[in-house]
């Protein structure tokens, strides 16, 4: 960079780089080097809402969060899942090294209850990470969650249907999730493709997490050998 510019940035207090504004040194490492690099602050940012939009089930959409959840729960921090679409399978979570006693599951009957519970947990200040699943949520409801997350410095994640990709959202980070297929010679390796469609304080880009990178957070060998795999 131009030394004159550098000098100005150091001396003038009214000048700063847009990216630095959102730099949080205490962000949660995602456990995936490529993703850490793409996110401002080098990890999942706490104190704001992260929105994940998986295009289909079974592509590794939850495995993406496992390393961070593992780190939190082992640090004696509380983690909550609200309104999961299916039964969270304890053996898989235990394999991933998550302390089950530190993971609170909340079953809800409808979206209103899910959003209410999420807000309560965010505001309680007891939880370090709160993840929820909603069928439909308005921008106003998400804004409430975003505000609650800001207040409690909590890592809030919401899973929404990928159809909501064009809707306006107050979330600080929005990621569209899909399978990625790469062709090497004759074998097909699959992975998880992350389209960062909104990154506050960063640039939108595409990140691909290769299938084998999920092995470590999963804690088990993937028994599939011949073809590739996309996340467990």
């Amino acid at each position, binding site marked *: 960079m131009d030394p004159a510019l550098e000098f100005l940035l150091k001396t003038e207090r009214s000048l700063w780089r847009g990216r630095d504004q959102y730099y949080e040194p205490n962000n949660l490492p995602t456990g995936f080097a490529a993703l850490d690099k793409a996110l401002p602050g080098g990890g999942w940012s706490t104190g704001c809402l992260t929105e994940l939009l998986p295009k289909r089930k*079974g592509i590794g959409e939850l*495995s993406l969060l496992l390393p961070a959840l593992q780190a939190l729960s082992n640090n004696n921090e509380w983690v909550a899942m609200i309104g999961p679409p299916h039964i969270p399978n304890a053996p898989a979570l235990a394999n991933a090294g998550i302390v089950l*006693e530190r993971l609170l599951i*909340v079953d809800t009957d409808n979206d209103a209850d899910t959003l209410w519970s999420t807000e309560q*947990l965010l505001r309680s200040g007891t939880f370090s990470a709160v993840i929820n699943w909603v069928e439909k949520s308005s921008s106003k409801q998400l804004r409430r969650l975003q505000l609650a997350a800001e207040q409690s410095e909590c890592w809030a994640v919401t899973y929404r249907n990928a159809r909501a990709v064009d809707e306006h959202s107050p979330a600080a980070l929005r990621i569209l999730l899909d399978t990625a297929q790469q062709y090497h010679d004759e074998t097909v390796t699959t992975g998880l493709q992350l389209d960062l469609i909104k990154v506050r304080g960063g640039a939108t880009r595409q990140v691909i997490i290769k299938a084998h990178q999920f092995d470590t957070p999963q804690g088990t060998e993937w*028994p599939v050998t011949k073809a590739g795999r*996309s996340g*467990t």
Partner: protein
Amino acid sequence: MLWAALYFPELSLDMISHNDGCSNKNQVTDPLPAVATCVVIQQGAQRLLMSCNRAARNLGLRSGLPLKSAYAVCPDLLTIEYDVDQQQQYIEQLSLWALQYSSWVTPVMPNTIMIEIEASLSLFGGLPRMLTTIFNDTRQQGLQMQMGIAPNPSAARLLSQFGITPNSENNNAENDNAGNDERPISDKVAMTDSTSLLKHLGEIPVSCLPLDDFTLKGLRQSGIRHCEQLFDLPASSLARRFGQSCTELVFKLQGKLPDPCPAFQAPERFTHSLDLALEAPDSQALQFPLNRLLSALGGFLRTSDLGVKKLNIILKHHRLPRTVITLGFLEATADHKHLLKIASERLLATSIPAPAIAITIDAESLATVTRNGKDLFNKSQSQAVSIQQTVDLLSARLGTDKAYTLALQQDHRPEKVLERKAAKSNIPSPKTPSRSGDTHSTSWPARPIWLLQEPVLADQSITPRSSAERIENGWWDTDDVRRDYYIAEDDTGAWYWAFTLRQSPDNRQFYIHGYFA
């Protein structure tokens, strides 16, 4: 010893009102409903008004007025029958509440509570602060109260009835924007040493003394107007002329004669109810009586050093079966604010079939409270309390067993391996935090994160990619499972946990049982 006498002049009126007196704290709101209400007592053949609320007083009604005349003034007057048993219950309920200030509380019928406060002074941070606490607590419950403090119970009682109204004093102090300046109240109310007490008692008219009419008449005829004159009389002539009871009273007031007050014993189980003067149509209107009952429960729990694990709120309706709302708590709690929060949340979520005419709370299972010493450096310790409170709050709205943690069972059948457990606050921290993958104690082969409630027949074509994992278990009970599990992939690249039934090996139909999310 130092006695505080709390005198509730309008107890029966205050107790039935369910208008929230603490809604605006800065001014003394009349805690009674705007409807003219009176307490009626049967005296001989006549029914007389015993006390009236402000709305009734504004209409010109006074206590002592016959009910018939009162109806002439105000046809839609709301009347409450004076009931000794009811009064007894009220005063006991207040005694329970007062037990949080001292272990020595004596209820005196019909409407006074004696509290021995000297032993509690340092706990509450001195006399002025303690008095302010008591005033504020009574005001929050919407009760009118007068207080007297003296070294002996009789004098304290007399002072309280003589009408020193600390409430107004307290407000003056607040209006002067001197919230910390609590001196005026304590100076005015509290007679902590016997010289100032005697001086103060001396000014009280004799007619206020709790003596029978005959003695009072005799005193009046002898030209004795104030207590000072009474105190100056020699004891022997006092006894000769006015009888034993008068002499005893004078000696007790002066502290020359012991004045025993039996300490109130809290009952083992807590059940209290309130009759509502106006029907409460919704849960919002029930907030105030609920608050009052729960404060009494809080005082009761604190003194008995117990916590409540299960609480029933029973609403009585007119000609309809009662509504019973049961609150369960994760751990025994004695925190009145927490109880109120949970109960309100639950009441709001419950639909009430008809207006309630009475509310009862019944603390069923009492248990000792586990109090965690707070560790300054350990965050999880201070979290411990709030996690239960958060879970209680969720269960109040969503229903019990909706918030839980998972645990592993020793069973290989996927449906049986999960166990739901109530979230526990104080778990031992993990022994060796495993940070890298290879230190995980891997006891399970690859398992999907999402497990379906019921396996579904796969309607899309899926291709098994792994070798079969046979799960064969449970032949001894009804859920016999004989399946070959595969990790399978479909065309779009999504991964499933699917199985075929071993009972029908020819029919290779896949059932999906989970997603590798």
